């Protein structure tokens, strides 16, 4: 394991926002101990901006068919899938590299995490946290001894760097604006760090 100047291993989560194209941080990114990428990330042609090192992929179960299965995987179940069922993700997918499967307990914990770090007064009824926000929560939980960095998270102020039109003006259940502020508070409290 590569240890940085502070003798603390570092994990970096790279989101897919368009803002990653503002800086060429590829070399810096590839020096992290662990690099986590999200969903259907795309490296090819973007290496000088986002690097190429990929240790873990965090993804929703129904996108698992489209990603590299030789990588370690954090599997985020759909919020309303029964934990014991696992009907959709597991069968015939050969998922031997899953290091964590999102559980009901994670749902409870992430809600507390959100409320404790932002506000208890925001009504979260029927909301479903986005994959990016869930990944930040899960990485903090799974790698407590690491210094956690993030890059490429604007919570859909823009689209994806490889598809600027992605998720533009479609309805879903993700509370993006509150996730964005919550993450800024985590940065402000030095629980996570922004890559610069």
């Amino acid at each position: 394991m590569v240890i940085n100047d502070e003798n603390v291993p570092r994990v970096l989560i790279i989101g897919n926002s368009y803002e990653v194209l503002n800086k060429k941080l590829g070399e810096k990114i590839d020096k992290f101990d662990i690099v986590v990428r999200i969903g259907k990330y795309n490296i090819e042609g973007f290496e000088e901006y986002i690097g190429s090192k990929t240790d873990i992929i965090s993804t929703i179960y129904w996108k698992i068919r489209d990603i590299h299965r030789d990588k370690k995987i954090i599997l985020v179940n759909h919020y309303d899938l029964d934990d014991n069922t696992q009907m959709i993700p597991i069968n015939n997918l050969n998922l031997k590299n899953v290091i964590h499967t999102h559980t009901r307990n994670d749902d409870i914990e992430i809600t507390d995490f959100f409320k404790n770090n932002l506000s208890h007064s925001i009504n979260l009824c029927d909301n479903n946290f986005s994959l990016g926000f869930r990944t930040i929560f899960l990485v903090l939980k799974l790698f407590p001894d690491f210094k956690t960095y993030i890059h490429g998270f604007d919570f859909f102020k823009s689209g994806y760097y490889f598809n600027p039109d992605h998720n533009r003006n479609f309805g879903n259940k993700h509370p993006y604006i509150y996730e964005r502020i919550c993450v800024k508070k985590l940065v402000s409290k030095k629980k996570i760090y922004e890559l610069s």
Partner: protein
Amino acid sequence: MQFIEISNENGDILYRGTNVRSDDTSYIFEDILTDSEIVVPKEDVYCVSNLTYSGYQNTLKYLTLIKNDDQLTQGEKKHLFKLQRVYKQYTDLKCLKLLNLGKYTILDDVPIKVLQKSLARLIGVELKKATTTLDKLISAENDETVILEINSTKSDLENNVKDFLEAPCFPKTIEGILQKWPTLLNPSPFQQILTM
């Protein structure tokens, strides 16, 4: 084993299902229909519990995501058709209520211009709610960095909504009205109905 039932106000059971594997998606294999046709009048739909419709939704997901049409048995096709009919009735009524168009009973009856006007009004209401929440967060915040982020988020949100209402992508069809929504104003209240 779990039971689900849909009943009308008189207590007559319209649909009954059992779930022997403790997951919603197995209803399809164990259900017992009491009628050859399910017709749920407007007033009866409100008697259906959310849990029951969550079961319906999961069944639909299972059938439409995992199986192709040619893989469905005749029994599954029959049930899928019935589920879709009941589900459409239910969601139409909920959406019409949300749009303040309670005098209609199905979305297809509403002129598109009326729908667009109602959608714009609803977006205005939801934007007001969100900006009020953001203002409350600012009032409760001491950290200048976070306050800046909230103000920036608020500005992004208002611009997103303005662009959405003025853009050519403003929905012109019923499907568009249910699916399109300003990205940063998510969670969409329609999605909360459609994915209940």
